[in-house]
């Protein structure tokens, strides 16, 4: 079974530039999550999708961050414009509804963003 795919793996940009990350979840996983992990901290949920609908985006900085999950499969997360404090690893995860009680989320390798 293929895991969660993310690209790019690394990205370096200057502040005020834009950047986009892509995620392809495990086939059949209806729920998709984007997390931000700043160095020395645990992952923080930015947004959660159920199919192509947003379930929770309460911690997404909506003035600069946006995410979409067209057709309920792949997802993109965009930052526009980026700030220095956005430097972090952006993790995508997915889960299958049948595992909702155990809440076992499967994570991709992440995209390490450095904003200079």
């Amino acid at each position, binding site marked *: 079974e293929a895991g969660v795919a993310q690209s790019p793996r690394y990205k370096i940009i200057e502040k005020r530039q834009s950047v986009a990350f892509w995620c392809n979840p495990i086939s059949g996983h209806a729920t998709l999550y984007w997390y931000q992990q700043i160095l020395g901290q645990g*992952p923080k949920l930015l947004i959660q999708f159920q199919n192509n609908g947003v379930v929770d985006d309460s911690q997404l900085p909506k003035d600069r961050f946006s995410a979409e999950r067209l057709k309920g499969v792949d997802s993109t997360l965009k930052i526009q414009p980026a700030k220095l404090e956005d430097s972090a690893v952006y993790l995508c995860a997915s889960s299958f509804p049948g595992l909702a009680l155990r809440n076992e989320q499967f994570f991709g390798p992440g995209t390490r963003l450095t904003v200079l």
Partner: protein
Amino acid sequence: DQQVKQNSPSLSVQEGRISILNCDYTNSMFDYFLWYKKYPAEGPTFLISISSIKDKNEDGRFTVFLNKSAKHLSLHIVPSQPGDSAVYFCAARRINTGTASKLTFGTGTRLQVTL
């Protein structure tokens, strides 16, 4: 407001000995707890979980203990192996909310198992 806390940023244990990783939480609405393991340049992987109706869950070398009155859980690894060297994250979930599967993570503990 850090609702899930892992107060030990690092831990070093000799191979074959027991590793004990601790986690404290403040939100009494949490009712399901998970441990994730993370190797460098990889995403976290699920390790073991426990429901709040239990006080212990065991899976091979890994055992998680939950003390609800103290709002404390711990992960025991015995015997520890060099391949266990990784960062371990404790996570907690609130049930019966609109975002039932939302996880709150701790800051992680880096475990190093030495030869």
